[in-house]
C-alpha cells in the first residue's frame, strides 16, 4: 500500500496534466493567423498556472470522446503566448497559423466549446540570475508568441533592459496587434512600442520585414546585427529566440561569433509531446560517447529535452530533416 500512497502523493501536485479547457476567445488576426484563449478551472488551473514561456500545450483538434472521428488523429503542439491567472481559473492564449485540418478545426470553435489540452509541456526559457542583465528577444512569424509571454515573464521578474526584434515577410503578416503610422519609423533601427504584446511588458521593439513594407528591410538577424554594431553595449545581452529554423540557425551563429549566450525555442514534427514516441528528435553537437550514454546523446527530444535549448549545443547542420 505504501507504493500506492507515494504514487498518489506525487500526483497531488503534478507539473502537467490532461485537462478539458473552455474556449473564451477565438479571434482572427488576418492572413491565416488567429488567436484562441482557453480557460481551465479547479485543480487544472493550478497545474496550468505553472506554465513558463517557451513551454507548449498539445491540443486535441477533435472530440476525444468520439473515437469514431479519428481525424486529425494526433494532437497539435502550440506554444503559449500569454498566461492569465486568477484564484479560480487559468487562461492561456495560443496564436496559430491556419495550416491544415487541425488548425481549421480550432478556428471553428465558439466561446464555451471544450478542447482537450495536455500541458504545460517541455522546458521553458531559463531566466538570468542578474536582474540587470540586458535581454534581447528575437523572433519571426509564429515564433513570436512565446517571446510575448517571455517578455511579460521577464518584466514580472524585474528585468528592465529588454529589446525585441520581430521579423516577418511582410508587415501584414505580423502576428499580434500593431499600432503604427503607415510610413513606418524614420530610423528603422529606432526602437518603438508599437506592437501591443511587447508594449504591455514595456519592451522596445524593432520590426523588420523581408520586403521592406515596414521598419528595417531584411531579416530579423540582419536587424539585430546592425543594431549591435550601432550600440555595442547590447553585445553583453542574453539572447532568446524563436522562429523558423533558418532564422534560428543564423541567430545561433551570430550569437556564437559575439560570445553571447543564446537560448532557442525549437519546433519539430511531434506526435505525443511528452517524451514517449521519440518523434521529435533533434541532432546535438557530437560528444564523445560515454559508456553511460552510448550513442544516444546524438539526439535529444524537442518535446521533453526542449523545446528550449542552448543554441551552442545544437548540430545546426543536421538538426532536422
Amino acid at each position: 500500500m505504501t507504493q500506492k500512497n507515494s504514487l498518489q502523493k506525487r500526483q497531488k501536485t503534478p507539473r502537467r496534466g490532461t485537462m478539458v479547457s473552455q474556449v473564451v476567445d477565438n479571434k482572427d488576426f488576418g492572413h491565416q493567423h488567429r488567436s484562441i484563449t482557453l480557460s481551465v478551472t479547479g485543480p487544472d488551473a493550478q497545474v496550468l498556472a505553472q506554465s513558463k514561456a517557451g513551454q507548449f500545450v498539445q491540443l486535441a483538434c477533435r472530440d476525444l470522446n468520439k473515437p469514431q472521428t479519428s481525424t486529425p488523429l494526433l494532437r497539435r503542439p502550440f506554444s503559449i503566448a500569454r498566461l492569465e491567472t486568477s484564484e479560480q481559473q487559468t487562461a492561456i492564449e495560443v496564436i496559430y497559423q491556419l495550416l491544415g485540418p487541425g488548425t481549421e478545426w480550432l478556428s471553428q470553435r465558439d466561446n464555451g466549446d471544450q478542447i482537450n489540452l495536455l500541458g504545460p509541456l517541455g522546458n521553458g526559457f531559463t531566466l538570468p540570475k542578474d536582474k540587470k542583465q540586458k535581454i534581447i528577444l528575437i523572433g519571426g512569424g509564429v515564433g513570436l508568441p512565446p517571446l510575448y509571454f517571455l517578455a511579460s515573464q521577464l518584466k514580472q521578474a524585474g528585468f528592465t533592459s529588454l529589446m525585441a526584434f520581430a521579423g516577418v515577410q511582410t508587415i501584414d503578416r505580423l502576428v499580434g496587434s500593431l499600432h503604427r503610422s503607415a510610413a513606418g519609423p524614420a530610423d528603422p533601427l529606432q526602437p518603438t512600442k508599437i506592437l501591443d504584446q511587447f508594449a504591455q511588458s514595456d519592451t522596445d521593439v524593432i520590426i523588420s520585414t523581408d520586403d521592406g513594407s515596414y521598419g528595417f528591410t531584411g531579416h530579423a538577424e540582419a536587424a539585430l546585427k546592425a543594431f549591435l554594431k550601432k550600440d555595442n553595449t547590447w553585445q553583453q545581452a542574453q539572447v532568446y529566440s524563436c522562429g523558423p529554423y533558418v532564422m534560428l540557425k543564423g541567430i545561433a551563429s551570430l550569437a556564437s561569433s559575439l560570445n553571447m549566450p543564446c537560448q532557442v525555442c525549437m519546433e519539430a514534427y511531434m506526435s505525443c509531446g511528452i517524451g514517449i514516441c521519440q518523434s521529435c528528435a533533434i541532432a546535438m553537437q557530437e560528444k564523445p560517447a560515454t559508456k553511460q550514454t552510448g550513442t544516444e546523446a546524438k539526439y535529444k527530444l524537442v518535446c521533453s529535452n526542449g523545446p528550449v535549448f542552448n543554441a551552442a549545443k545544437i548540430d545546426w547542420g543536421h538538426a532536422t530533416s
Partner: protein
Amino acid sequence: MKSQAQTAPDMSVELGTVRLQNPVMTASGTCGYVFELNDFVDLTQLGGFITKSITLEARPGNPPQRTQETASGMLNAIGLANVGLDVFLEEKVPLLKRMSIPVFVNVAGKTIEEYVTVSERLSNIDTISGLELNVSCPNVKQGGITFGTDPGQLGKLVSSVRARCPQSLLIVKLTPNVTDITVTARAAIEAGADVLSLVNTFYGMAIDIAKRKPILANRTGGLSGPAIKPMALYMVHKVYTEVAQPAGIPLIGMGGISCAEDALQFIIAGATSVSVGTQALIDPGCLPGIIDGINRYLQRHKFSAVKELIGTLE
C-alpha cells in the same frame, strides 16, 4: 428497486502463468520504459505494462522526420531508439519495482545471439514477469522483422531464447507483413512461445509531392492507429481460431484500439488481453476509461468474468 448488488465482474485474465488484474495493457514503444506517463495516468490500474524495446547496445534511432500522421493513422520509423540494456538495468529496472502490476520487457536485436543475451540477463529479475520478443520492427536494417517474416529463422530465434530462459514467460510479437500470419504464429508456438502478441505495425509510406521525396527520413515506416484496426482484428481472429485456441496459447491483441468497444472486439475475436498504443500517445487517460468500458459492458451483458467473453465470436 431491483437488486443493484450484482457482483462486479471478474476482470482478471491469465497470460500463461501470469495473472493480470484486467486485460488492458500498454503497447511497447508507446508508453516509455517505466513511469513516464505518471503525470497523466495511474499505470497501476492497468492489467500489465509492456516497456519499449531494449537492445544490447544503446541506439540513437533514425534521423528525423520519424513520424507522420496519415488518415486515421500514424507512420513511425523511430528505429528502436533506446538507452541499451546496461542503462535500462541500472536506471529503469529499480524504478520498475514500484510498478505493482506485471511488467513485460520488449526485447529486440540484430542477431539471435543479441536476443539471447538480452533476454537471459532480464530473465533473472524478479520484477519482470515476462519478455516480449520484438521480431516485427519494420524500421531497422538488421534483425527485427527479418526474423518475424521467415518461419525458419523465427523458430530458431524463439527456441534459442527458450533454451536459455526456461522459466520466463515468452511472448512473441508478430508482424502483419506476411502472406499468412498463421504460419509464423505456428512457428513461434512450436519453438516454445507461451503467448503471442499481434499485430505490430504495417509497412507504409508517405510522400512529399513538392519535393518528390519520402516524408520519413527512413523512407518507409510502420502504420498504426485506427486505420489498421480492421486488419489487425482479422489477424487476431484468424490466429485464434486456426492456431492459438487449438494450442491453448493466449493472445495479446493490438492494432488501433482507441476505446472500450475496440478492445471488446479484440477480446470477442479471441484476444485474452489487449494493448493500447497510438491512442495512449494521444490521450494517456484513455487507458482507465477502456477498463471501465469493458467492465460496464460485462455487467450490461451479464457476464460474470471477462474470461467468459474471450473468443465468443459466433
